[in-house]
C-alpha cells in the first residue's frame, strides 16, 4: 500500500489568523512567541555573553543586516552578488566624513546610510533594466572596480585606508545600535512586504510586463526598493567602519557579498527572518570551526552543502511549516 504525507494546518493557526478570535492566552502566545524570539534573543542574550562572543555577535549582526538587504532586493526580483558594494560605500562615506571633517558617529552613520544608499542606487540605475543574471553580474563587478579605483588613484587613503576613526563609546552601545537596526529592518521590511507596496514588488519579480501594463512605473519602483536595500547595506558599512576604527579596501571584500547570500539561502529567502537565522548559524559556526585550523574551510563547506541538500527550502521555512502544520501519513489506493 502506498503512503503519502499529508499536511494540515493546526487549528490554533486558523483561529489566531482571525483577529476577532484572539480570546485565549494560548492563541496570543501562538502569535507572540515567534516574534519575541528574535527580540529577546538579540537584546537580552548578548549582554550575558563573554566579550569575545559579543564581538562575534556584533559582526554576525552586520552580516545579518546585509543578508536582510539581500532578501529585500530579491523580493523585487533583483539578485545581488555585490552586497559589498553597499558595505564598502557606506564604510567610505562614514569614514571620510569622520576622517576629513571630524563628524561624530552620531551624524556620520545616518548620513552614510542615506548618501550611501543614494550613491549605490545611482551607480546601479543604468542596469536596473537588466533582469536576473545580468543585473547580478554588474553588482559583482562594481565593488571590484571601485576597489581597483581606490588602489590606482590613491584617493581616500589608497591602500592604507582611513585609520584612527572615532570608535563607539563602549561595547554595549555598539551592540545595541546594530541589534536595534537588525530588528528594525526585520520587522519593518516584513511589514512593508505585506503591504500593497510590497505586493507590487512581488508582482515585478513575478511578471514585470504585467505590472507595466497596470500603469505602474516598474523602474521607479525597483529604484525605490534598491535604495532601501542599499541604505541598509550602507548602514552596516558605516557601523562597521566605526567599530573597526578603519575604512578601507577590505570594505569591498567578497566576504560581504558571499556570506549574506549564503545566509539567505541557508535560512530561507523571502521572509527576512530566514536570512537573519542563516547569518546567526553560519557566522558563529565559522568561528567555532577555527579550532580545526586549516581544515576549517573544508568542514564549513561541508556544513553548507548539508544544509542546502537537507533543507533546500531553508531552515526558517522548515521551522515555520512545523509550527503551523502537522503531518500524518495517509494511505493512497
Amino acid at each position: 500500500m502506498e503512503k503519502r504525507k499529508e499536511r494540515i494546518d493546526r487549528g490554533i493557526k486558523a483561529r489566531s489568523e482571525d483577529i476577532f478570535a484572539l480570546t485565549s492566552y494560548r492563541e496570543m502566545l501562538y502569535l507572540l512567541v515567534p516574534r519575541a524570539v528574535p527580540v529577546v534573543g538579540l537584546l537580552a542574550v548578548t549582554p550575558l555573553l563573554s566579550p569575545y562572543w559579543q564581538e562575534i555577535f556584533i559582526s554576525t549582526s552586520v552580516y545579518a543586516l546585509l543578508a536582510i538587504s539581500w532578501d529585500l532586493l530579491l523580493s523585487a526580483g533583483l539578485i545581488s552578488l555585490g552586497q559589498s558594494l553597499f558595505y564598502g560605500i557606506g564604510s567610505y562615506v562614514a569614514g571620510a566624513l569622520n576622517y576629513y571633517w571630524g563628524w561624530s558617529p552620531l551624524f556620520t552613520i545616518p548620513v552614510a546610510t542615506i548618501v550611501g544608499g543614494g550613491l549605490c542606487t545611482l551607480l546601479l540605475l543604468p542596469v536596473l533594466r537588466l533582469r536576473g543574471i545580468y543585473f547580478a553580474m554588474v553588482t559583482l563587478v562594481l565593488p571590484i572596480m571601485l576597489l581597483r579605483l581606490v588602489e590606482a588613484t590613491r584617493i581616500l587613503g589608497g591602500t592604507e585606508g582611513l585609520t584612527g576613526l572615532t570608535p563607539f563609546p563602549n561595547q554595549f552601545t555598539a551592540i545595541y545600535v546594530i541589534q536595534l537596526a537588525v530588528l528594525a529592518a526585520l520587522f519593518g521590511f516584513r511589514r512593508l512586504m505585506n503591504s500593497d507596496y510590497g505586493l507590487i514588488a512581488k508582482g515585478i519579480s513575478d511578471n514585470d510586463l504585467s505590472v507595466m501594463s497596470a500603469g505602474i512605473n516598474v523602474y521607479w519602483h525597483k529604484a525605490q526598493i534598491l535604495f532601501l536595500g542599499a541604505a541598509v547595506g550602507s548602514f552596516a558599512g558605516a557601523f562597521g567602519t566605526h567599530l573597526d576604527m578603519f575604512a578601507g579596501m577590505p570594505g569591498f571584500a567578497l566576504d560581504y557579498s558571499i556570506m549574506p547570500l549564503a545566509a539567505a539561502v541557508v535560512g530561507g529567502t523571502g521572509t527576512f527572518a530566514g536570512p537573519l537565522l542563516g547569518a546567526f548559524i553560519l557566522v558563529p559556526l565559522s568561528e567555532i570551526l577555527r579550532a580545526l585550523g586549516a581544515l576549517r574551510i573544508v568542514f564549513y563547506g561541508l556544513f553548507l552543502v548539508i544544509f542546502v541538500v537537507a533543507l533546500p527550502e531553508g531552515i526558517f521555512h522548515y521551522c515555520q511549516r512545523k509550527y503551523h502544520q502537522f503531518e500524518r501519513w495517509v494511505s493512497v489506493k
Partner: protein
Amino acid sequence: MSESRPMLEVTGLSKSFGGVMAVSDVHMQLKEGELLGVIGPNGSGKTTLVNLITGFSKPQSGKIVYKGKRITGWPPYRIVTLGIARTFQMVRPFYQLPAYKNLIVPLYSPRVKRLAGGRYGDRDAVALDLLEEVGFERDAYVSYKVASALPQGYLKRLELAKVMALRPDLIILDELFSGLSLAEVASIVPIIEKLRFQGKTIIMIEHRLKELFRIADRVMVLNYGEKIAEGAAEAVMESDAVKKAYLGSETD
C-alpha cells in the same frame, strides 16, 4: 471638437523585425464609444499593432495620437495613465498571488489613485467587487484561490478584471476568447456589452469571427502587416482580398 476628432488616430505606423515587416504603413481611426474588431490570419501583425499602440514596442515610423496627444514611443505605464489598457493574448497573472490580490496591482496605479481622488480605502473590497463583475462567484472560495490554481476561463476573466480595475477609456482585448469554450465566451460577451454601455471604446483582436461580428461595429483586416480591408463585418468578409488572405488564392 471632440465630436469631430477621432479618439485614437494612427498614421503610417510601421515596425519590422529583422527583414520582416510586422506592421507596415497602417492607418486607422477610432471614434469614442466604438468597438473595432481587428482580424487577420496568424502572424498578420495584430498583436504587434497592439504592442505599438500600448508602448510595449517602439514603431520605426508613423505616429499615434490619442485624445489629441502624440503618444508615439511613450513607455507603457504613461500610456496606461492616459487611459489605454490592454489584456495579453497569453494570460499574465501573478501566479503566486490569490486572484483578488492580482487586482491590487492595477488598483495601486497612479491613474486609479488620481481618479479616486487620492484615497482608495480598502483595495481588497474593491478587488472582490470587480471579480464579481467579471463572473467570479461572490462568497465562493474561487476569488481567494492562487491564480496558478484557476482554470483558463477564470484566468481570462481575471485578465479582463485587471483591465477594468484601471478604469480605462480605451480597452484593447488581445484574443480574449481564444482557448475558451462556447459557453464561456457566451458568458463573457455580456460583460463586454456592459463596458460598451458604460461608454468605453474597445479594440478587439479576435480569431473567433462569429462571436466578434455579433458585437463589433467595424472590422479591420490585417495581412502580412498591411491593412487590406475595413468596414462593416459582412462587407469586409465579401471582399476578394480578405477571402484570398484567409482561404488562399487558387492561382497561388
